[in-house]
């Protein structure tokens, strides 16, 4: 559904004018299915951020309209990079992530598809987790003379929902950036005594709704039907006509 929406919007004559940040802290939010278009210059580092939930498969496409070929003096290497809420680099599993363009190319398209966002991962893992993601679009190599020339950037994000039952577990809090200034502690707090396990009924053991519920319920029904069929096999055949 998201993809269809995004496609419909892509067909619109122009992306809506948007903004881009210049650092992790000022990254401009983008949402799936709403392309943004920003004016920038070569050499800028453009930052966007987007929110994800478990099961999504974020896919980014960026189109950069380069300055006139007459103003350029050599090849440029562009790159689109994605970082999670803890600013850890996330690999792209599909898409042209870092193309190199020759001096006469008019525009360049970059893409990055992330792995499906997992609902839980070991703390030491780098798996994609729900929360904020940062996108950085920049050029990693270019002739010094070509810096500061105007470019136009179109960014599109789609986030199709993948299989929700593929994963177990739940993260206690999504990976979002901290948005408050820190404070150096004068005296280190002593660790509180470990909390006693809560008494009373807990429903934690019931998994959240996912495709597994559908599979399991369907399986139960099919097993019941199969049971009836099996039962009927053992019935004495009634008189044949």
């Amino acid at each position, binding site marked *: 559904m998201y993809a269809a929406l995004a496609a419909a919007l892509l067909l619109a004559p122009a992306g809506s004018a948007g903004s881009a940040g210049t650092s992790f802290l000022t990254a401009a939010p983008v949402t799936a299915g709403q392309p943004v278009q920003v004016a920038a210059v070569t050499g800028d580092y453009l930052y966007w951020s987007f929110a994800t939930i478990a099961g999504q498969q974020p896919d980014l496409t960026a189109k950069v309209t380069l300055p006139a070929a007459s103003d350029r003096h050599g090849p440029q290497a562009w790159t689109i990079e994605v970082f999670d809420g803890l600013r850890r680099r996330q690999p792209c599993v599909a898409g042209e992530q870092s193309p190199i363009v020759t001096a006469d190319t008019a525009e360049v398209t970059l893409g990055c598809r992330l792995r499906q966002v997992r609902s839980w991962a070991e703390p030491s893992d780098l798996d994609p987790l729900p929360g904020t993601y940062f996108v950085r679009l920049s050029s990693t190599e270019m002739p010094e003379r070509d810096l500061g020339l105007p470019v136009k950037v179109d960014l599109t994000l789609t986030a199709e929902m993948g299989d929700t039952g593929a994963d177990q577990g739940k993260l206690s809090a999504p990976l979002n950036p901290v948005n408050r200034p820190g404070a150096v502690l004068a005296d280190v707090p002593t660790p509180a005594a470990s909390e006693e396990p809560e008494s009373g009924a807990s429903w934690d053991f019931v998994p959240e709704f996912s495709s597994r519920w559908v599979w399991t319920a369907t399986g139960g029904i099919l097993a019941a039907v199969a049971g009836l069929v099996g039962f009927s096999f053992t019935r*004495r055949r009634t008189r044949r006509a």
Partner: protein
Amino acid sequence: MLVLVGMISALWAIGDAPAYADEGEPEAVPPSVELVLDVSGSMRAKDIDGETRIAVAKRAFGQVVDALPETTQLGIRVLGATYPGDDKKKGCQDTQQIVPVGPVDRGQAKAAIAKLKPTGFTPIGLALRRAAEDLGTAGSARRIVLITDGEDTCTPPDPCAVARELAAKGTKLVVDTLGLTPDQKTRKQLVCISTATGGTFASAKSEQELTDRVQQLVDRAAVPPPVTPAAVTGAKSCEQAPALSPGVYSDRERIGEHRYYRVPLQPGQELRASVSVALDRPINRDYGVLLKAVTANGRELVRGLDAASGRADVISSGLRWSAGKAEEEKAGEEEKAGEAEQAITEVCLIVSNSFASSTPAAAPGMPLELSIDTVAASTAPDAPGLGRGWLFLLVLIVAGLIAGVLAGWLTRWWVATWREN
């Protein structure tokens, strides 16, 4: 040379509240911005759409002033505007603030701009220093937009070194630079100034380009960053390291230096940390950053690292850590056994880098941004309680079928026995 050094001071009224604002958090201090405009003799050159650079710059400024949001507080500083002589000593002191930082009086600002005449030298370094003073040290972010058509004619001091020095003082200072048809030397200098402060460089060859870019920079300046990092100084060892509560911090780290921080943790908490080191000077092609979490006695818990090559503004890494079940059980057992070792209540974070630069790696170091968060630890999931997949369905169906057949036989046997009796 006419350098338009525009100082826009946009003191933004309380902007969007931070998304995750805590109660009782002090209100964000609005950012301030300054426009610094070069009005040196070279701005007389007639090479932008057949007009003089100063005429184009004036018109562009007029348009930008017209489009300024009501809440923006604007200051304009010029350099090289008054001293026409040849005495370098005097010419290099030639910088004035023509519009004081404050709410914009459009008429006054435009009148002040209209009066400018291209005159003297280009003391960029001094103008930057004065502009930083005009902005004060308050504000969540300070921004200077420097517009010039030529390089500094008053070196030393090297304006690039001045910019780096200013950026290391007080709240974050960003210098965005705009070159009017810049030559190679000017471009190099402006790129250096903007890189040193995490700003941007753009060149403008037409009035449209100039207007668009200044507008864009002013708009960006009007959006305050969601958080102002608190300054902290990392130590050389874990014992002396500052204890940090969750939040965002800024520090400086020299090339090859290790900085230590401590984070106290409660049982059942997960530590989340990320670090970004800004590349504020020319460095060798390949570089990396390492964030390591260790216990107080130096045992490594987890590490986050990243490496890259080529142009970049920052390099970042992050990590998550929480005591696993095994760890907690072990600590529990040891406690019972009366051992001194307890559960980990404090994690040491070490930030190190692998930069190399031909620029002397003296103080101030490279800007470092550290963010710390503690959340409830996530529990590892048990084996799945529900099934999924075609094989699972097949197994259920076959099991159902077998159960049905068995039930059928059992029923027949039971009915037969019952009838006989």
